[in-house]
């Protein structure tokens, strides 16, 4: 059991039952501080950029192009990309297009469980502005309202080639130290949480999972 911090700056976890309150932390997420020595931070970023482990969670249609990406023809393994079955081992979350409200809840939970530094790539048109399902009652339209996204790749669906290009772009961004999505999430945590709770009506999980 994780101890309750007992300060004002804790999360309410109002969606949990009393019993569950004891099972989850109520601490807020903390922002990532770069190493004080630049060379060390650069080295760390280089290492991060070359071992992008993708969370194997096909949230939407985009997952269909992840399979060619990961198999022989496009062979993303050569870029240091590998699929991992659990969020705890993953550093990249690829949002495969549209997210229904039901999936969004799992996305948030998976995202929060990922260890930092972590990055999000959003595939396709739907996360940008609703795409084909802009008028659907069950899919969110602007993904940046709920999870910080580091890179958008437009297309329907984006081809594996452009996924490769996107991964390379992400690597460049990481190496340049410009991937601060996770920190944005921490800094604007309340805003993100409010947006999430606006669409997820049965909030029965801790406010921050890790």
């Amino acid at each position, binding site marked *: 059991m994780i101890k309750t911090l007992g300060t004002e700056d804790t999360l309410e976890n109002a969606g949990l039952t009393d019993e569950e309150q004891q099972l989850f932390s109520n601490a807020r997420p903390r922002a990532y501080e770069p190493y004080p020595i630049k060379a060390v931070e650069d080295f760390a970023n280089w290492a991060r950029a070359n071992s992008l482990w993708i969370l194997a969670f096909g949230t939407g249609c985009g997952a269909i192009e992840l399979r060619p990406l990961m198999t022989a023809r496009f062979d993303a393994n050569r870029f240091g990309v590998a699929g991992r079955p659990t969020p705890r081992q993953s550093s990249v979350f690829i949002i495969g297009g549209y997210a229904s*409200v*039901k999936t969004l*809840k799992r996305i948030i939970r998976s995202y929060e469980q990922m260890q930092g530094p972590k990055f999000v790539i959003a595939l396709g048109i739907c996360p*940008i*502005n*609703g795409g084909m399902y*802009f*008028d*659907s*009652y*069950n*899919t*969110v*339209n*602007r993904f940046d*309202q709920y999870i910080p996204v580091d890179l958008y790749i437009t297309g329907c669906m984006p081809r594996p080639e452009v996924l490769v290009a996107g991964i390379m772009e992400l690597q460049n961004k990481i190496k340049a130290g410009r991937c601060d999505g996770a920190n944005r999430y921490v800094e604007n945590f309340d805003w993100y949480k409010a947006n999430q709770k*606006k*669409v*997820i*009506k*049965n*909030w029965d999980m801790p406010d921050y999972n890790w």
Partner: protein
Amino acid sequence: MNELLERLQRHFDVNNINVLKPGMTTLKIGKDSAEILIRELRDREGYTHLNFITCIDYIEDGIFTLVYMLHNYDSKHTLGVHVDIDREHEEMTSIHTLWAQAWTYQRELREMYGINFPGSPRLDEDFCLEGWDQIPPMRREFDTRVFSEERFGHREGRHSEVPRVHMKMELYPKRGGDEE
């Protein structure tokens, strides 16, 4: 085919028989005898395959039309059984004992249209939706676009002109149209 329909007409109060194409017919039956008819069709007439159950919302008539699509593999014939139920009293006999997948359809109809099937298993569990707080979404009075705009919002910065209005403003703002 005609013999079947004659038989059905003898025993049941079926009407609105509509031959849609060779190999497909629909008919309508009252709510109370529907389950017996379907059971009869399955057990005696060879309509052993349930293609699907669905619902059509005729909001202007105040009814839901339930459609049970049955198929006979031997005669290669599909029979659609239509049952009208009152939109205000949206309840129908469950046929979950006839086919194993029937309760899934009924669960979906419960969620999407709010139709009750007493006795159908896991009827009130969430099926596709989760935390839904509006009227059932497939009902025609539910406007999905308005809902989406209100709840999910759209990216700003979009604006479109209508060619004829734009041309009027640009080319002949004082002419055309009527003062009325």
